[in-house]
């Protein structure tokens, strides 16, 4: 079959419509970047220059003072966030990869209903269950501990990580699994030798999104750790932005610092992430 889409004749109308497409895309790109632009230029201004009247103006010079001040205020919590998020993201991804494997390749009676129950559980309004959460964690001795918080994040992550990996594994033909069984692979063997090696895009997606989700959480982290000095960085940012002072440049700098890790992780894993996202629908 010839690719007629590429053989469109070159015409002025064609050129114009290409131009229009790029124009729209660039306009949207500017729209999407606009808030970040504001955050960044405000953070780079000294306090005296931060005036609502001149909000859009570029800073006179590059003042990193506000970043220094913001960092000194959020650094301890930043550290907490790393110690919470990195293990939690990794562990919950692995749990999801095994659960997803089970749901997709080892269907037992009732596993579909079970899976649906998992999914429905995703939509728990966590702000409303903080009290039973505390009481339950306390009764198992996990209250106030970082381990407890990691545990809770993993539990809340069980449904979606399982969903993601299940979807991904469903794209892998069952024949591969059968072949493995014939070769003598058991439950763990198939996971380890057949599915795990090709699960990289799925891991990228799950890791990225668990990282983002856990990093951006604050109320669960705060309540489970029961101590503001152990709380995640989002709490520190809120302390600054929710206050009665108007040190805008420091607040913006703090917001940027808090947002940085997720952006960095996203940029680094971006390609793998898109591949994982698209892997669901594009067949080779």
């Amino acid at each position, binding site marked *: 079959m010839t690719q007629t889409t590429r053989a469109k004749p070159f015409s002025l109308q064609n050129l114009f419509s290409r131009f229009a497409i790029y124009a729209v895309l660039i306009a949207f790109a500017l729209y999407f970047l606009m808030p970040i632009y504001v955050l960044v230029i405000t953070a780079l201004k000294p306090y005296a220059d931060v005036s609502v009247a001149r909000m859009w103006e570029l800073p006179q010079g590059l003042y990193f003072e506000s970043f220094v001040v913001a960092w000194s205020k959020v*650094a*301890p*919590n*930043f*550290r*907490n966030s*790393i*110690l919470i998020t*990195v*293990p939690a993201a*990794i562990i919950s991804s692995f749990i999801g990869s095994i659960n997803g494997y089970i749901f997709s390749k080892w269907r037992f009676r009732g596993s579909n209903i079970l899976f649906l129950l998992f999914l429905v559980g995703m939509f728990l309004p966590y702000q409303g269950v*903080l*009290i039973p959460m*505390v*009481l339950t964690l*306390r009764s198992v001795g996990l*209250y*106030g*501990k*970082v*381990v*407890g918080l*990691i545990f809770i994040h993993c539990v809340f992550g069980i449904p979606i990580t399982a969903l993601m990996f299940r979807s991904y594994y469903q794209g892998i033909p069952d024949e591969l699994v059968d072949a493995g069984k014939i070769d003598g692979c058991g439950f763990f063997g198939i996971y380890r030798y057949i599915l795990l*090696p*090709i*699960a*990289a*895009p799925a*891991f*990228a997606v799950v*890791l990225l999104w668990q990282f983002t989700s856990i990093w951006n959480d*604050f*109320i669960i982290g*705060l*309540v489970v*750790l*029961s*101590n*503001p*000095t*152990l*709380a995640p960085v989002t*709490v520190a940012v*809120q*302390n*600054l932005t*929710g*206050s*009665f*002072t*108007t040190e805008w440049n420091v607040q913006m700098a703090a917001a940027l610092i808090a947002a940085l*890790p997720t952006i*960095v*992780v996203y940029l*680094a*894993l971006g390609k*793998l992430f898109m591949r994982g996202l698209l*892997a669901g629908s594009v067949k080779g």
Partner: protein
Amino acid sequence: MKNLSRRQLLKFGAIGGAGLALAACTPPPAAAPAAPAAPAATAASGAAAAPAASAGGKLEIFSWWTVGGEVEGLNAMFDVYKAKYPGVEIINAALSGGAGQGGNMKALLETRMLGGEPPDSFQVHLGQELTASHVVAGRMEDLSDLYQSEGWNTVFPKGIIELASYQGKPYSVPVNIHRSNVLWYNKTQMADVGVDKAPATWDDWFVYADKLKAKGIAALAVAGADPNFSAHVFENILVATIGPENYLGLFNGKTKWDDPAVKTAMETLLRAHTYAQPDYTSVAWGEINEVLSSGKASTMVMGDWTHGALKSMKFTDYHWAPSPGTSGVFVALSDSFGLPKGVKNRDNVVNWLKVCGSREGQDAFNPLKGSIPARSDPDLTKYDDYLKETIEAFKTNTIVGSIQHGAAAKQSFVNDYDAVINTLVSGKDVAASMTQLVEAANAAEFGA
């Protein structure tokens, strides 16, 4: 579908490693955390607590004092404490979103109290905010003995001890007193319209406001984005129209909330709002001082933390007076600390309360915070002109509790009250709002 290439593995490793290295390099939290940093199960966290009072141990203080003069004041009190009890490690668990704001701090406090792991001591507004919550539920210790041994029964004013008490026993120690009913005004603008002193009644204020309006100046600074701001203004109008005796009666059933004076107060509030600065509905409470300091509005009815805020903004062209119609009345609110039952470091907390109620502690805290001490024997040299005046007023004025700041009524009523004022200011339907307010009062069972 490719394998996890070496390159990608390295990327993961690099990111993870960089993250952990960064975490290792950044300073650890100010105090050693109760929980271990590494994800390994530990022995009971109670093992960290040291036994004897004079020896050491920890002291975890919850508050919502996270910025500015508040933090400085708190740290000053910590210094006083540390000088007396050097072995104790103070954990400053300050978090925004405190009592009236219903945010993070309140959520954390509630989950800990209900979860059976109370903080050693926590900041709370003196009065019903504490009494109707944790005192009534039996979660706070009675401080009668401490009041006796520290001599507070003679040095705290009676009105304050009453606010602190439930069934005759005090449950918290007030550190400071703020005044709710203050009118802040721009001096230059007042001179510009030929007025030489602050309006004494609301009628006078409206005359003044019209003069300002003729000059194109907005008379009232309003933070419309936070409806609780107007609720604060309303309580002071209420005191003015109904008088302090009847105001007190509102909370013990002696005065009815459908009193015509309450209706008048609502009408006055609405009328005052017609003199608000343009775009006032988008201004948040945290931004209101700028409105005053930039001259966008000329007067403001707000608590006296405004003084500290304006000073820190280097604004000086202002002065103060009691909110119109409330001369001789002191609408008070206070920050206090109590002793929850079952705390881990009880002796340390008792010592903390002693510092809170001591002359030294209060004189260290209040000048920085911008409030006056609860004690009647402060070292006046430490306080500026506004505070000196206020200390005097506090001695002689009739003291009533603020609604908005948790003194006069329990928090659920304040919540309802805020909702009523919220609706009143935007809907402008006084009759409907009166009905709602009476409903809220019935739900609160005043005087029951």
